[in-house]
């Protein structure tokens, strides 16, 4: 009997496909998410929009909050550690969370290196803005990738940009002749073996979700049609006027992402979506998708 193998770690991500992972900060929110049909919840102290607003150093959440959420729902529970903060990751693993998100939403703890995720039996999900970054994280042991988007803004443009960048990267690598793969691995800063995998299989070796700015059923449909295998919704649910209704609608939109009739039906009467921030007008220093190396 073997635990913590890559197949077991990436297997859980396979089971989450076609689903919505929702950020929650309380037991009540976790129950609303489960009731709406979330496949998993991300247990946090504050949603990204509030982390942005609060400023200061954002760290791993209060463990009591995470534990309470773990004991209140039957779906898997994820939690975030800071980039490179392997001690936070060790603590979250010992707590028994089902997935760790090594997340740019928190303040990075290391300006050069990420966590060596092979050291852990708990699986990791990591953010990426392009193919090279996705393959570097997988090379470090990530069992799931999510595009970063721009968390806490409610603006989907960065998620779209990153999804397209990964998709374009994959089609480019798939179309190259073999002799160009090593040069490409060097150029995009990715492990050669993983570049070869993408060339042969025309896909990432692990599941790829999308995150950062998805806040309506239409956003979920858009990003799924661009090739995401599922979505993370952070601030979009509990910063909207009617969280249960919005959450349920986004779950249905993710299942029926290419059925415009269903999308129209579930999009009606949801009340206000989160107000958000236009990332085009945002000070570049406030961007968090640039965190990660």
């Amino acid at each position, binding site marked *: 009997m073997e635990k913590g193998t890559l197949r*077991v770690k990436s297997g859980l991500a396979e089971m989450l496909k*076609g689903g919505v992972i929702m950020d929650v900060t309380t037991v009540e929110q976790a129950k609303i998410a489960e009731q709406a049909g979330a*496949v998993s919840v991300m247990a946090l102290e504050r949603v990204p929009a509030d982390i942005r607003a609060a400023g200061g150093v954002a760290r791993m959440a209060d463990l009591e909050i995470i534990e309470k959420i773990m004991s209140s729902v039957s779906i898997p529970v994820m939690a975030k550690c800071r980039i490179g903060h392997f001690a936070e990751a060790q603590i979250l693993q010992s707590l028994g969370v089902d997935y760790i998100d090594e997340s740019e939403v928190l303040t990075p703890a290391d300006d050069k290196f990420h966590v060596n995720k092979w050291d852990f039996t708990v699986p990791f999900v990591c953010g990426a803005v392009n193919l090279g970054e996705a393959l570097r994280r997988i090379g470090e042991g990530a069992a799931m990738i999510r595009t970063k988007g721009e968390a806490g803004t409610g603006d989907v443009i960065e998620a779209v940009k990153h999804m397209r960048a990964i998709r374009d990267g994959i089609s480019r690598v798939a179309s190259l002749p073999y002799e160009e793969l090593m040069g490409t691995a060097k150029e995009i800063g990715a492990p050669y073996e993983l570049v070869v995998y993408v060339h042969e299989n025309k896909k990432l070796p692990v599941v790829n979700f999308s995150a950062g700015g998805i806040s309506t059923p239409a956003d979920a449909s858009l990003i799924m049609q661009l090739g995401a295998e599922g979505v993370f919704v952070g601030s979009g649910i509990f910063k909207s006027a009617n969280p249960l209704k919005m959450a349920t609608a986004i779950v249905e939109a993710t299942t029926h992402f290419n059925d415009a009739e269903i999308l129209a039906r579930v999009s009606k009467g949801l009340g206000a979506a989160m107000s958000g921030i236009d990332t085009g007008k945002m000070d570049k220093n406030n961007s968090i998708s640039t965190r990660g190396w």
Partner: protein
Amino acid sequence: MAAKIGVLALQGAFREHINAIKKCGYQAFEIKFAGCLEDIDGLIIPGGESTTMVKLIEKYNFRPALDRFYKSGRPIFGTCAGLILLAAKVDNLAFCLNYIDIEVDRNAYGRQSESFESNIKLNSSYFKKPYDFKAVFIRAPKIIKASAKVQVLASLNSSAVLAMQGSILVCSFHPELTDDLRIHMLFAGMVKKSLNKPNTDILV
């Protein structure tokens, strides 16, 4: 007539089942609406999150069509979350299709940190090559009770992990995550057999 196998595609690892069925040489289809069940000869309910699938099954009114499908004797194969949905009784889940007489504990194998893979031996009355099936258990449900009507096709530490009753096949692990097609071939065989003699041996 070639057998057509549908895979419930509301959420979860449905693509992997479709690929496995195609590799077995059968046609495979995604099933997103209850009406599509009319056109297929066998159904796979994949792994995923059981609470999410229950919400969507209820919302999109699958229950009556699933009951008709089952009563017509067409085979159904449930893996992991699919096993949970097909069971007669599940710990704290109100929804049960009750097509196979097993009782299930969703959390008995523990959280993700307890997920594992292990080689299991298959029942040699059903499999010509019964040895070394690499079974991947992910937050797996446990069959804690199976009635005498249920045939056990594989077990691990004395609980059934692959079981059959009439037209229903279930397993608590994920054969779709490996390249081993033996269990999908068994199910495809059940579908083929039911096509040749429809409405026989239905145990309702």
